[in-house]
Each structure stands twice: as structure tokens, then as C-alpha cells.
């Protein structure tokens, strides 16, 4: 098992290396002079030269890449062009809200979507099934920020239950944190829930046709036991794969959700960096999100052993 984990971890190194190359090349494959792109349309010659100097853009490409990679391996992602602060520090300051938002979203979405998917599969063809599936298609079709504004309109404006915008750290006040995080988490979770619910239903439908499910019913097991212990457990491998891959949707959604709810997280940092073409920051955020995504999916691969004892590492 440990050998396997180690081997899988080592196997992610080339992937992450390639991601790093891609991210590095993004700027250099763009048409035009990178320094001019970063400086923007209104910069004069002197400002452009300063940026070229600061980013070392005068050196040959492989020298630039080597230097960048060595810095990166030491946890140095350069400095923000706008504020001059180290990118690592900027990202560090913004991690908590994004991490909390994503975790809350995942907890809410998974704990609602899997039961809904199971019920839809169990009651396949009835109005319950159709209602769940309609909700799922709705979640796929409505853009995150429209859901966000609808929830603000209902939850904050009309009912007055939640604050409109902002963020309170969980370490400052737990009730404050919960009231600020609920609407963003529901907003961000809609697509994710739709994805998981659909996958759960589809996999459950397949599993429920298996002989052992009929056997379980035949020997008189309670429906709930059959559904959860026999069917769901066997459906969990594809479902957890979807949970992992769906995180890409969450990462995209975070950028938009944080803008809607004015949450000072990594998404907000990205948007600000984009508006200022603060390239080192954009680069840093993409790297952090991509690495997290790869590691998370590795972690999920490893959980398969919990659901399927035939899988041994």
C-alpha cells in the first residue's frame, strides 16, 4: 500500500512538471512582447523596460525557465508586478476563505447529491426521479453568478437571513462564518450537486440490476440496507471519481462566486490579477490550483480501496 502511494506520488511529478512548463510557456507563446503585454496599453517605454528587467525577460528562454523552476521548487513564485509583494505571500493570505468555501461546498453538495441520486434511482421513472433530474439539469444550465444573485435576492434581501456579501473567518466567529458562507456555498455547489446527483443515479441504476441486489431483497433485507450497503457501496467508485473530477468545476466557480459575494479569497485575487495583467500572480494561482487538483484526484484514487476490497494497492 505505502509503496503504491509512493509510486503514484512519484508518477504525478512528470504531470506537474508538464503543468509547470505549460504555465511558464503561456506567457511566451502569446503573440507580442511579454513585457508589453504585462505593462498594458498605456505604459511607456521605460515602464516596459523595467518589467522586462524585473522578470528577466532579456535572458534566453531556457535560462529563464531554469531560474523560474529552481525558484518554484524553493517555493518562490516571484513578485506581484502591481504590489511588489511575493506571490507566495499573497496566495498564503488568501487561501483560508477559498479553502473553507470549497470544503463547505463539497460537504453540502455531496451530502445532498448522493441521497438525491440514490432516491432518484430507487424511484426511477416516478415524479421524484423526474424532479431530481430536472433540478440537476437546472444546476447545469444556470450560470453560477445568476444562482448567486438569485440567492442574495431571496436569502438576504427578501428574507434577511443572510448578509449580502463579505466574509468572516471561522477563527473569529463561528456564527458569523456560517452566516457568510451559506449562500456562497449553495451557489458554488449547484453545478457540483447536479453532476454528482446525475452520476449517482446513473451508476445506481446499473448496480440495482445486479443479481446480488435481487438476492439481498430476496433474503428479506430492509430496502434502506439494500440501497446503502449493497448498492451504493458498489456504486461509490465511479461516484468518487466524479467527485474528484468535478473539483475542476468548483475551482472555476470559486473565481466567479468570490466576485459575487466579495469574498477575499484566491478567486478574487485571480480576478484582480487578470484586470491588472499581473502575470506572476496569475501564474502562481494557476499552479496552486492545478497542483491541488492533481493531488486531490490522487487522494480519491486511493479511497477506492475503502469501497471495493477487490482493489488492492
Amino acid at each position, binding site marked *: 500500500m505505502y509503496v503504491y502511494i509512493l509510486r503514484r506520488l512519484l508518477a504525478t511529478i512528470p504531470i506537474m512538471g508538464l503543468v509547470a512548463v505549460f504555465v511558464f510557456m503561456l506567457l511566451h507563446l502569446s503573440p507580442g512582447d511579454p513585457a508589453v503585454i504585462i505593462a498594458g496599453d498605456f505604459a511607456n517605454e521605460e515602464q516596459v523596460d523595467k518589467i522586462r528587467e524585473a522578470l528577466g525577460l532579456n535572458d534566453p528562454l531556457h535560462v529563464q525557465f531554469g531560474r523560474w523552476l529552481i525558484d518554484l521548487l524553493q517555493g518562490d513564485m516571484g513578485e506581484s508586478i502591481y504590489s511588489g509583494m511575493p506571490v507566495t505571500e499573497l496566495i498564503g493570505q488568501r487561501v483560508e476563505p477559498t479553502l473553507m468555501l470549497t470544503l463547505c461546498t463539497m460537504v453540502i453538495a455531496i451530502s445532498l447529491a448522493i441521497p438525491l441520486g440514490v432516491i432518484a434511482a430507487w424511484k426511477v421513472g416516478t415524479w421524484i426521479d423526474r424532479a431530481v433530474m430536472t433540478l440537476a439539469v437546472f444546476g447545469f444550465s444556470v*450560470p453560477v453568478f445568476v444562482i448567486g444573485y438569485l440567492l442574495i435576492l431571496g436569502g438576504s434581501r427578501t428574507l434577511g437571513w443572510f448578509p449580502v456579501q463579505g466574509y468572516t473567518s471561522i477563527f473569529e466567529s463561528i456564527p458569523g462564518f456560517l452566516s457568510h458562507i451559506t449562500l456562497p456555498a449553495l451557489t458554488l455547489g449547484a453545478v457540483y450537486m447536479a453532476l454528482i446527483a446525475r452520476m449517482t443515479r446513473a451508476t445506481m441504476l446499473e448496480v440495482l440490476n445486479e443479481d446480488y441486489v435481487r438476492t439481498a431483497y430476496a433474503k428479506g433485507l430492509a430496502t434502506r440496507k439494500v440501497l446503502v450497503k449493497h448498492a451504493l457501496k458498489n456504486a461509490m467508485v465511479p461516484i468518487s471519481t466524479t467527485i474528484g473530477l468535478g473539483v475542476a468545476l468548483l475551482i472555476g466557480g470559486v473565481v466567479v462566486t468570490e466576485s459575487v459575494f466579495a469574498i477575499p479569497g484566491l478567486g478574487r485575487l485571480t480576478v484582480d490579477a487578470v484586470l491588472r495583467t499581473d502575470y506572476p500572480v*496569475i501564474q502562481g494561482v494557476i499552479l496552486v490550483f492545478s497542483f491541488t487538483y492533481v493531488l486531490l484526484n490522487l487522494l480519491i484514487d486511493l479511497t477506492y480501496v475503502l469501497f471495493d476490497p477487490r482493489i488492492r494497492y
Partner: protein
Amino acid sequence: MSLQVQELSFGTRLRHRIGVVADSFRRNPTMLFGVAVLTLMAASAFLAPWLGLPDPMQQTPRERLQPPSAEALFGTDMYGRDLFSRVLHGGQVSLVVGLSVAALATSIGLFIGLISGFIRSVDAVIMRLMDALMSIPSILLAIALVALWGSSVQNVILALTIPEVPRVVRLVRSVVLMLRDQLYVQAAIACGTSTPRILIRHILPNTIPPLIVQATYICAQAVIFEAYLSFVGAGTPPEIPSWGNIMAEGRMFFFQTAGIILYPGAFLALTVFAINTFGDGLRDALDPRMQRRV
């Protein structure tokens, strides 16, 4: 010795395909709904300039943020521009972006996928590159690309296409891998058929049905992502009305006139919903093997 194979004419096969699609419309009324909504959306977006609506760019500051009325069906925005006209015109960008991304991503992905699936020597390299590209969350990649390339409709299309390509490659490759072990492909190889001919004559046609289905989902996603990009300020240039732009500019005024987000949002959602139901219907019709998957 030559091997004569009676082939069905292209016309016969086309008629058969059309028959299959027509059948599925009958069995699947929601698909008809999807097509109807899409036709309506496309017609209203592309005919908008001839409908006698107010100019979507015409600013009348005295009539800013008006509620819906007979003159302005959806009211006006913060510059007094007619919201109904803007929403109809805005559909052009969304539909063009959605269709172009779907067409580009599937054709590039098809090309790479065929090569990767059939020519084993390059497979490992291509797939590792695709894995790496897939590890970068697609919206982030698109945002970064537009931020660097500058905002224009072409750049948005390209930036949304690139992250989709690896997913298409994977799909095509998996179909090709399955097909190359089929007897008829093995027979073609044994007959000495050239690789390009096997790929084009024998393998390509079988990748088309799942690819069309995939294209509808890519299209739906691209329509949503275009709005995301515009919303965060890395999308369609502000002077072109697009659903994403209208919502991005209007967010400050949401509490005065909710319609500034809700109308374009509803149009966008309805379009994406229609594309998805159309795709689901096509999937059931064209690809029976996929029916039981999500």
C-alpha cells in the same frame, strides 16, 4: 485476386441516419423542445438587427434604469440602453462562441485522438501532454489566456477551445482503441490497407456519433464559460453586447433593477438547457451504448 465488397451508397446511409434522428424526435419530445428553443434563440439573436428594435448601443442617460414598459420590454440599463434589444443582440456572441468552440475542439481533438489511438508510438507522449493540460482547471486556463491575448471574440473562442481538446482526444482515443481490435479493422490491416485509409474509411465514421453528442455538451459549456469570462472581465470586449457583458456591467445595479441580471441570465440558462436536452436526445438516438451512462 481482388476483394469486392458491396458498400451501401452514401445516400442510403444518410437516409438511414436521418431516419434514426427523426425516430428519436418522435420518442423524445423534450429533444424537440430543445431544438425549438434553440431555433427561436438563434432567430431572435441573428434577426435582431432587422426587428426594428432600438439600437443596443444607443445611450439615453435621461432614461436610465427604467422598469419594463411597452417601449422597453425589459426596461433600460444604467446608460439608458434598451435591455430587450441588448439581450437579443447579446445572443449572437454566445451562440457564435458556443458553436465555434464545439466545432474547433471536436475537430482538433478528433485529429489528435485518431493519431494517438492508432499510432502507438506517439500515444504515450500525446496522452501525457493531454493529462497535463487537463490538470489545469479549464476556466482558469481560459481566463489566463484571454488576459494575455487581449479580449476579443476570437481570443475567447480559442481560449475556451484549448482546455476542451484533451477531453475530446480521450473520447476519440478510447473509441479507436476499441475499434482497432474489431475483426473488420484487423481484416483491413491484413488486406494491406494503408493507415490513413483505415483511419478515414473504417474508424472515423464510428467516432462521429459519440463526438456529435460530446460537441453539444462542449457547446453548452462554452456558452456558460463565455459568460464567466466576461463576468470576471476577461471576455468579450465591453463594447459588444453579450449576455455575460450585460450581467457583468449590470451587477452594481442589481438591487435597483434585478432584471439587468435576471433577463440575460434567463436567456442564457434557457439556451444552455435547450442545448443539453438536444444533446441528451441525440445521445439516445445515435449512441445506444452510451444510453445507460450519465
